[in-house]
């Protein structure tokens, strides 16, 4: 007969209670959010001001404090999808290999003669050997420099491959090494973007790798995607190069191992510098950078090298007093001062034509470090906070109205049993929010639609059961037996129907992105909770009701 063991009853109600407990913080969103922020700040070692204490006290410590994250479309903010130009890094790698190979081949001058680096397409290193007879030996030496790649895919592969072509040795990175390098480049880019976004101090940014070479950046609360782009779109690669000469011809051939770089100083419009390609020092060796003002009172940026950088810079300036060197930022010469004396302290100042804002920004970027490669932006979205708030308000109203209509309709259709289903429905929505908070999911506008849809569809399982009970009652069984049979026989339909919908939710989650994913999450969780409430919760309620009332007949 109708019986559920005490253990099972307790278990069911406990599950519901836990779900509702987890959902509760969302009812007090602002104070819980403040509490969490304050807790985080204090944990990070911030001074406990009275305001922080008040925020912290705004929500009791012993209660759960996880919230449903609001997606960008609800909170407002900027979204960028960037593709990292991983090939940019190959050139630097080739420069590194060149130094290594040069040192190795120098010792064999007797057999292979002198060596010279030639201009080569991107990702290749071409070395000319003056004595072609020794090319085989040179090739052997270069191959000997190759080291195994440590990666999951490239087992047994080495980092470089070398072949001979006439009197040239051509060195290329192997595919395995390229994959490993790309991976490192993306990781570095992620790290640097994170540092830059943190410097600006916005809350809860999402910075994620997507696919092989893409990075998704979502920053709530930032004014526009353009603002975000200015912050993370700049490579901020700072280098100091020896100046070879100056020209006004943008097409002038710079000569081997030299580069032609335009000046951005407006007083030097149309001026190009020919610089040595290998920098003396780079921004990687900076330890600090701050905005400042130069002796003329215009905005400037100060920098300080780390020990290695300071030594290199000191030696170079000591040897080249009287000649100019160029400060290059992202392939543009900011300024090219003449070295007046050796700079040994390891610190200096860049004055260009900055505004205060630009110098502040540049200092942030230099502190955070340069991006290893350039990025192109494939997708950008800005959503204003008002629009997000409008969406939340509209979603709330729609939810409440949908809720009310379904509740009334269920009561009209099923009477007492309708009330049971309604209790289950209310618990159901509470548990969806509980689960969303628990897994730290993000609620989006389509996600709200998913909840509303769930409100409509969640009653389905109960409807199936109630209809079945009605049918069983017709064949003149006692109420208890009819209820039991109703649950028993409706089960397979409920499971099959919900599993198929769940499959589509999973596919949607796996294939979708952003808002669509948010919809898939609420839909999927809604299916889980609605099956749970229909099979267990309404059943417990009905059994409890039946035990107390012991009705001779029931009307469903």
């Amino acid at each position, binding site marked *: 007969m109708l019986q559920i063991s005490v253990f099972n009853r307790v278990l069911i109600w406990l599950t519901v209670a836990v779900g509702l407990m987890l959902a509760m913080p969302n009812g007090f969103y602002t104070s819980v959010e403040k509490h969490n922020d304050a807790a985080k700040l204090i944990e990070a070692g911030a001074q406990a001001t009275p305001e922080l204490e008040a925020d912290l006290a705004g929500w009791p410590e012993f209660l759960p404090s996880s919230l449903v994250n609001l997606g960008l479309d609800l909170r407002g903010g900027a979204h960028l999808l960037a593709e990292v130009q991983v090939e940019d890094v190959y050139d630097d790698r080739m420069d590194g290999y060149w130094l290594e190979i040069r040192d190795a081949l120098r010792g064999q001058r007797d057999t292979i003669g002198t060596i010279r680096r030639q201009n080569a397409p991107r990702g290749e290193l071409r070395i000319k050997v003056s004595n072609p007879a020794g090319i085989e030996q040179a090739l052997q030496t270069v191959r000997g420099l190759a080291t195994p790649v440590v990666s999951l895919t490239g087992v047994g592969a080495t980092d470089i491959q070398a072949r001979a072509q006439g009197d040239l040795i051509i060195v290329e990175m192997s595919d395995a090494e390229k994959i490993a390098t790309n991976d490192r480049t993306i990781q570095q880019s992620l790290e640097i973007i994170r540092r830059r976004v943190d410097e600006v101090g916005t809350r809860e940014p999402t910075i994620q790798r997507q696919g092989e070479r893409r990075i998704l950046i979502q920053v709530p609360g930032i004014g526009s995607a353009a603002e975000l782009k*200015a912050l993370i779109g700049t490579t901020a690669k700072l280098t100091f190069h020896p100046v070879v000469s100056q020209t006004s011809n943008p097409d002038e051939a710079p000569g081997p191992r030299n580069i032609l770089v335009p000046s951005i100083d407006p007083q030097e419009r149309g001026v190009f510098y020919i610089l040595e390609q290998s920098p003396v020092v780079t921004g990687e060796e900076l330890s600090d950078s701050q905005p400042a003002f130069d002796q003329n009172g215009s905005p400037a940026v100060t920098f300080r090298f780390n020990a290695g950088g300071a030594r290199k810079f000191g030696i170079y300036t000591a040897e080249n007093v009287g000649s100019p060197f160029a400060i290059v930022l992202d392939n543009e010469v900011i300024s090219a001062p003449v070295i007046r004396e050796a700079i040994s302290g390891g610190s200096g100042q860049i004055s260009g034509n900055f505004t205060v804002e630009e110098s502040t920004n540049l200092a942030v970027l230099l502190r955070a470090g340069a991006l290893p490669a350039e990025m192109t932006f494939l997708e950008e979205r800005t959503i204003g906070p008002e629009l997000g708030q409008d969406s939340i308000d509209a979603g709330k109203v729609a939810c409440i109205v949908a809720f009310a209509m379904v509740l009334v309709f269920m009561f*009209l259709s099923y009477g007492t049993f309708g009330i049971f289903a309604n209790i289950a429905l209310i618990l159901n929505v509470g548990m969806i929010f509980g689960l969303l908070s628990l897994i730290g999911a993000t609620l989006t506008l*389509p996600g709200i639609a998913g909840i509303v*849809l769930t409100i*409509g569809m969640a009653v389905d399982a109960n409807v199936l059961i109630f209809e079945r009970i009605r049918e069983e009652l017709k064949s003149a069984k006692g109420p208890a037996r009819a209820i039991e049979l109703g649950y028993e026989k409706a089960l397979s339909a409920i499971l099959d129907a919900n599993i198929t919908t769940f499959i589509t939710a999973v596919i949607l989650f796996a*294939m979708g992105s952003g808002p669509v994913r948010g919809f898939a999450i609420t839909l999927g969780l809604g299916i889980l909770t609605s099956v749970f409430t229909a099979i267990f919760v309404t059943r417990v309620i009905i059994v409890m009701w039946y035990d107390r009332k012991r009705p001779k007949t029931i009307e469903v």
Partner: protein
Amino acid sequence: MRLKLVPQNTNWDFFKRNKLTLGLSVVLILVGFASFMLQGLNYGIDFRGGTTIRTESVNPVDVAAYREALEPAGLGDVSITEVFDPTFADDQNVAMIRIEAQEGEEAASVDLVKTVETAMRALDPDIKFPSVESVGPKVSGELIQTAAIAVALAIFAVLFYIWLRFEWQFALGAVAALVHDVILTLGVFSELQIKFDLAIIAALLTIVGYSLNDTVVVFDRVRENLRKYKKKDLKDVLNVSINETLSRTVMTSVTTLLALFSLYILGGDVIRGFVFAMIWGVIVGTYSSVFVASAILLWLGVKRDWSKPDANAGNQFGNVEA
């Protein structure tokens, strides 16, 4: 007194006008398909690339003036539509400006957005830009591909699951109903030229799920009745099953539609297209689970030899000697 949408104990013959209902579906599918081929969908920037800028102002929207203001920028194909919504305040005038993807660019440059914003501010100093979205052609191409794969994958996964749980005739019937629903939804979107974006794909998949939900409930009853009435005609068994589940089918559709309509009217213009797709899908899906899925099942026929009543009948391993 209970509210009853469907009279108790119906005994309707759902296959009496079999030719008419199937014919109607075929005609609708052809119309939808033709519209899809000839007119095509009104793809949003998610699938086509480009930039949309939402404007909001206390001053009324003047599409012609907006267009004129943007003319000098030479942005190519620009479409401007005013947005109306019952949730807007009286002095809230909203328009959407859509600019096609610019030659040789991925996402819109900062300059493009600035140009548009400056031009619009010159026309209407009170104007605000609550959202700016830009998608490059590279991503939009991938998105459309992923979306198509997702829908196909969902259909196949479901085909497989139903084949596993029922028999292949059921699976084919269910999938025929799904394809019917998806094509009719695409048809409506192309016929009415409603903006088709990423969210609509989510709606399509939900329709797939919902339609299936309905179909599976009917099929589950068919499976049960096939065991119960061994001598009855398949047609009669199907009719009995549909009649028995009719009350539930209607109830669930009505509660779902109640929720969806409230979202359609009150949920704001941003998701209206999405909700419209789902409303349409629920109606079409309910219809198709009765008139398409079952009709196909009737046409294909089902194995009626349930010689081992104790076995979890119907699965293909039923007669394997263990």
